[in-house]
């Protein structure tokens, strides 16, 4: 199935793209998507402990299951204000 991955701030810089479509196996979780991405862009692995994830623009845990057409976002530590 096909999902859209979105990356922000330094994660986007590391991967060189803000948004990318990815093919993932059915039954995958957000963690599956992250592992696949971190394999592709090794610099991302440094953020494994500090990043947050979101599913369809809602904060979600890494073990949340993803479905065809979902938008998955990975967020480095925030710095608003």
């Amino acid at each position, binding site marked *: 199935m096909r999902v859209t991955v979105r990356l922000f701030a*330094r994660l986007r810089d590391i991967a060189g793209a803000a948004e990318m479509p990815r093919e993932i196996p059915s039954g995958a979780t957000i963690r599956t998507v992250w592992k696949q991405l971190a394999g592709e862009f090794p610099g991302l692995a440094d953020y494994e402990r500090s990043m947050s994830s979101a599913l369809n623009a809602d*904060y979600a845990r890494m073990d949340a299951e993803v479905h065809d057409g979902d938008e998955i976002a990975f967020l480095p530590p*925030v710095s608003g*204000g």
Partner: protein
Amino acid sequence: MPTPLFAIGPAPLALEPLVSAVASGSDGVDGAITVFLGLVRNHNQGRRVQYLEYEAYEPLALKAFARIDEEVRKRWPGMRMALHHRTGRLDIGEASVVIVTASPHRGDAFAACRYVIERVKQIVPVWKREYFDGGDVWIEGATADPDDQHARAEAERIACA
């Protein structure tokens, strides 16, 4: 068009329409309105800052604003608030965030206002890139986790100190 209480985007922040928007919900019960403006500062950690670039995951940021509003109304019943955050390039002295809280009592209005900015820094998906003399760097603060009760309690402790 009336000013929305919650917004994020590149438009310059306007204080008075936001204060009016909060005040108009009062029915006369308010005794205090507190306003906080966050500004772009010309120095940070020994660096001379030239300007900042703000980026946001806007739909999630708006949901985080709604969550903060919910937390505020639970902690301070009767409190009303507004929150606008800016994105894009901001020069020194420009406002990046404006928070307005209204309450029957000034103590609560001040505390809630402080609580809101602490929570913004904890859970709102916004990032700033600092351009300084000699380079640029992404600023990274808190790992965003709205369900982290320890962080929420810490924001409340700071607000009510």
